[in-house]
């Protein structure tokens, strides 16, 4: 035991306080939301150009991570193919813009086409479980890249496809970077809010039960298959939205965009941000964009080394991801909401057997958010 104590999980911070904490009071929360809104509205106006451009990219990948979270963080189905749906959404967008379609139509298609593709894949893949689903989803980027090259007439082949759209409208008094960031904030914000209410509502509870134990779900009359398909489809749809935003912000896509490596990095970003967490998705998107920038700044020739080290360091300190840091702060509120969760915390605490560390902590945290 002594030898293990070095890696034993850190003792939890103080338990739930009985009285509602400051952050729990309704007016505080409402004021907080308002403050956030004001910051989001004002920030693009006052931030330097590169900050705006970076934040827009963060938004793109936050949405992509959010989609992954729906299927993986909330529903527990490992998906290694999320980047494919981003790529698909980007291609649909690029194609539409090149053909001068109405931007609203383009946006809707960028949602619908990936969603339908996701639905088709899910109808087949959701029959499988665990690692098998991971392998089927791995195939999406792996096959997607050569497929995009083969369909060169539509995709522009390996040289990719550019589409510039949506500069700041005349008379808006905005610079392009400001306008782009607003678009990302509005579309991304809506997606986040909708997803938030989805995972906190009836569907979210069903997802959590499916994640917890499919047999239990079946016995409760919840079809794991149907909910897995649903989660996968929604994730694909959100992926499509992120693809639209990708095209809006980056204005170029190529088969490289949806390479397998990027899918893996999205997965890492999701876990780093915090699986099964709305805020975690934003943090994950920020991680995806900012860490390469940061490591480039430190030493561009050591980026891989530094990124690996940062990833390991963050998870070593926060196995539950960056969001767990925030959760620790707002623990009281989380505990009181835990009753909604599917798996009621057992009286028997998670195992701390052997010399293995008590890493049950993130486990219980996820219940709280389920």
């Amino acid at each position, binding site marked *: 035991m002594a*030898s*293990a104590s070095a*890696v034993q999980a850190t003792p939890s911070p103080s338990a739930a306080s009985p009285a509602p904490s400051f952050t729990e009071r309704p007016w505080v929360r409402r004021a907080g939301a308002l403050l956030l809104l004001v910051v989001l509205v004002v920030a693009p106006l006052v931030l330097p150009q590169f900050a705006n451009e970076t934040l827009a990219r963060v938004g793109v990948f936050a949405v992509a991570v959010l989609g992954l979270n729906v299927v*993986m963080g909330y529903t527990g189905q*490992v998906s290694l193919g999320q980047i494919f749906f981003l790529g698909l959404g980007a291609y649909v967008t690029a194609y539409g813009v090149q053909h001068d379609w109405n931007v609203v139509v383009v946006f809707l298609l960028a949602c619908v086409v990936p969603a339908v593709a996701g639905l088709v894949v899910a109808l*087949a*893949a959701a*029959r*499988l*479980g665990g*690692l*098998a689903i991971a*392998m*089927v989803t*791995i*195939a999406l980027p*792996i*096959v997607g890249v*050569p*497929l995009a*090259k*083969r369909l060169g007439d539509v995709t522009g082949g390996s040289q990719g496809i550019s589409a510039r759209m949506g500069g700041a409208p005349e008379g808006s008094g905005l610079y392009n970077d400001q306008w782009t960031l607003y678009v990302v904030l509005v579309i991304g914000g809506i997606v986040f809010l909708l997803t938030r209410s989805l995972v906190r509502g009836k569907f979210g509870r069903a997802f959590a039960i499916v994640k917890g*134990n499919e*047999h*239990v779900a079946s*016995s409760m009359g919840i079809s794991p298959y149907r909910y897995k398909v649903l989660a996968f489809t929604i994730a694909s749809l959100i992926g499509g939205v992120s693809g639209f935003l990708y095209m809006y912000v980056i204005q170029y896509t190529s088969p490289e965009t949806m390479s*397998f490596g990027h899918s*893996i990095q999205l*997965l*890492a970003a999701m*876990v*780093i941000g915090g*699986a099964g967490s709305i805020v975690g998705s934003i943090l994950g998107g920020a991680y995806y964009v900012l860490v390469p920038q940061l490591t480039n700044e430190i030493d561009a*020739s*050591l*980026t*891989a*080394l*530094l*990124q*690996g080290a940062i*990833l*390991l360091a963050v*998870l*070593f300190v926060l*196995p*539950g*991801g960056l969001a767990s840091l925030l959760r620790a702060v707002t623990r009281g509120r989380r505990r009181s909401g835990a009753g909604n969760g599917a798996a009621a915390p057992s009286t028997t605490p998670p*195992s701390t*057997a*052997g*010399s*293995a*560390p008590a*890493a*049950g*902590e*993130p*486990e219980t945290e*996820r219940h709280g958010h389920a």
Partner: protein
Amino acid sequence: MGTFVQLVVDGLSTGSVYAAIALAIVLVNQATGLINFAQGGMAVLAAYVAWALTNRGVPLVLAILLSIVFSFVLGAVVERYLMRRFERGDPDTAVVVTIGLLTLITGVAGWLWTYNNQSFPSLFPLDTVSFLGVSVSIRSIGTTLVIVVVMALLQALFVGTKLGLALRAVAINPQSASYSGLPVGRLLMVGWGLAAALGAVAGALVAPQLTLTPGMLDNALVYALAAVILGGLTSPVGVVVAAWIIGVLENLAAVYVPFIGYDLKVAVPFILIFVVLIVRPQGLFGRKTVVRV
């Protein structure tokens, strides 16, 4: 006809490369229940160590043996000081940790040895033997033979030995294993060490062909994973056979199925996986696992 047979032989030799990494993935999975994305990276690191040693005049065989020892220690250290923190937690997190490890190892290799291509001496000569109009290099035969031997050893380890049994027990239920007196921590270290040592063998086998670069095994990793799932996570024999099947079918599909061609042949293993798993969820050779409520 000659071309057909040659394509099959080519496929087997490519499949052996996938099998080498796949076996290490199976070993670590059986011993810890994890999928280790860094397996290829650790093998590359071992190959660099062997390469650096040969550059200092150490004979090749000795250099490889030393790299195997190095890898065993590295694997054990990685388990003890990195993975242990995550082994009882969310498996997704542990997998992402291995992704981070892969990135880190690749970065370290690039930093120490640059991204320049290095040629790695081969254990086997590149001479060719021909029979029935089919040519095979001694190197391919040698690689395949070593893979088969390793596979047999692994199968024996898991099925026949006390250590293998203990490794599997720890992976399945560490707490219960510790109640039976199994030193869980030490066994996990041994499992990772063995998998890394096996990875070192794999690295030395494939490095001459792929030439040594930090990302040498990145492309093979996906195929290795496919072989692992197709063959069934629990079966070394199954995984090797699956890797060969993938190698062969991929070639045949590329040549004889015009729609697939060389660009989409990568889809073949995944289509195969999909079909097989629908019929046999435990993989071709894996043992059936009944999930308890």
